[in-house]
């Protein structure tokens, strides 16, 4: 891949500049949101905040951190994300591997694929799901947030395609060595698919971490709420609803906009911590043990 010709270097220069420009386009709005979250209400409400906070105050963050439920909600989110992602990954892998086989290796493959595809597209909607969840006793349980989405067919298809790309001769030699399908899957295929596993894992983590709707519908007990649900509920038109006049003074320090901005921070920053672990698998990640044809 090394090419040090002149045209190559010019290209590099332009490329870096162009990508830097793109990165800037993506970064500046984030800076704006962060500035909003740190600004006082008057400025946030009067279009005065651009990239620097005005009237810097931490009221939005204070409200979140000061909320007695915060720690608990954070813990719930972490639990739900970890367990949920684990469940998702497991089920995705278990489904994707057999489906990555050819039709003659897996009898009835087309039917099975059809079985999975149909409910991916056709759904009964919120009401039947709600009734189901309450009937099987998952109401007010964290598992109502983990189990229903545990097998995401979209991810299964993606993983399936990744598995298909693995060199078949590797698998053949393993069979010849006497390995069964479980061994092949977990000892050979999986280690070679870390890029796709990392990707799907990342998608799952982000989805679980940011999901707030399920909590409002299925969890009546607030102690069980994940963080985003808690934040979402704090963000209600809270400036006047139920506030007594003497509380207005304190609330005026905080604006709807700056609180929403803080919410975005809570959604994004934790992902920043998780992300590098996944990223190393797909940036300049060379698959191990590739076999020469």
């Amino acid at each position: 891949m090394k090419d040090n010709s002149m045209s190559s270097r010019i290209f590099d220069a332009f490329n870096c500049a162009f990508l830097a420009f793109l990165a800037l386009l993506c970064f500046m709005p984030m800076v704006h949101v962060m500035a909003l979250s740190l600004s006082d209400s008057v400025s946030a409400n009067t279009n005065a905040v651009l990239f620097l906070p005005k009237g810097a105050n931490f009221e939005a963050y204070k409200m979140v951190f000061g909320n007695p439920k915060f720690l608990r909600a954070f813990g719930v989110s972490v639990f739900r994300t970890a367990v949920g992602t684990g469940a998702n990954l497991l089920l995705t892998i278990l489904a994707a591997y057999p489906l990555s086989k050819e039709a003659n290796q897996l009898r009835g493959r087309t039917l099975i694929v059809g079985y999975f595809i149909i409910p991916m597209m056709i759904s009964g909607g919120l009401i039947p799901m709600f009734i189901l969840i309450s009937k099987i006793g998952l109401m007010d349980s964290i598992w109502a947030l983990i189990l229903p989405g545990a097998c995401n067919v979209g991810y299964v298809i993606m993983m399936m395609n990744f598995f298909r790309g693995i060199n078949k001769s590797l698998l053949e030699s393993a069979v010849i060595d006497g390995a069964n399908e479980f061994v092949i899957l977990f000892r050979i295929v999986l280690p070679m698919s870390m890029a796709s596993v990392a990707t799907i894992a990342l998608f799952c983590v982000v989805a679980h971490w940011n999901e707030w709707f399920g909590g409002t519908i299925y969890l009546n007990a607030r102690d069980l709420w994940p963080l985003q649900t808690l934040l979402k509920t704090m963000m209600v038109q809270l400036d006047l609803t139920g506030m007594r006049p003497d509380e207005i003074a304190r609330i005026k320090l905080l604006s709807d906009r700056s609180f929403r901005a803080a919410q975005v921070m809570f959604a994004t920053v934790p992902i920043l911590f998780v992300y590098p672990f996944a990223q190393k698998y797909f940036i300049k990640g060379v698959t191990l043990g590739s076999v020469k044809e």
Partner: protein
Amino acid sequence: MRANTLDARAAAKGAAAGRRPSDWRLYAMLAAPAIIVFIFSYIPIGGVLIAFQNYSPDKGVLGSEFVGLKWFRVFFAMPDSARIVANTVAIAVGKIACSQLASVVFALLLNEVRGAAYKRSLQTITYFPHFLSWVIIGTVFIDMLSTRGLVNQILGAFGTAPKFFLGDPRLFQPTAVLLETWKEFGWGAIMYLAAISNISPDLYEAATIDGAGRLKQALHVTLPGIRGIALMLAVLALGGILNAGFEQILVLYNPSVYETGDIVDTFIYRYGLLDAQFSMSAAIGLFKSLIGLALMLAANWAAARFSDYRVL
């Protein structure tokens, strides 16, 4: 991914391990996912019947009056329903095409960057917009795209007359598409980067030995290497052909652009404001799903037929 087709042909010729009976273990693996899907996706599926009823929750799905295609008729009888569907398809296709293209190009360009640390930080920063909800950045864009906003100022420097992006029906759809592209290209590139990282370096070495420069390598090694993923994402995306990005449209649209900006989901939203009618939204939801499913299967068939690559 080229290996995929070679092996398929090899297996079809009866080479090596193509003929054993299916291993029971494969079915065992499928058991858990199948059960979860059955419980949480198939059992509630009966809810689609609501689309064909005058659903009344106290009577339930089994007891509500059956009205056949009434709600579909109501929707299509509305004078603007054809327009709404057309808008939805136009915007959705535009978004799919544009985003995918941008993601691919970005992934390719990023792949060419030498420094690992620089590469990583670039990639990290570009996924930020994915996390910004339209509710929070909507106002920013409305401001930026106003006739005296930033974008028009820049255009003005090039001598173009100011355009009312979010108020002119002719400009609304491209604007929505471009904004979505900006928001998703970084996140969408992740799949492609993962695929690129899966490409064996031997292929690159072979290409270099054959005298191919960087551009040729990108075109003949990298691009084919991600072709499969691109097709897969396209097919999956077509399943959502009638989801044109509700949140974004709701934040950005307004009465002066209804004719090109009103999509199926915003219609349902406004309809639901009137009176939360379970049946109508179920009917429209079913309509969207069926169209999406049909398209997805068609695309899958076309991909297999014309490019030898099976997605599903």
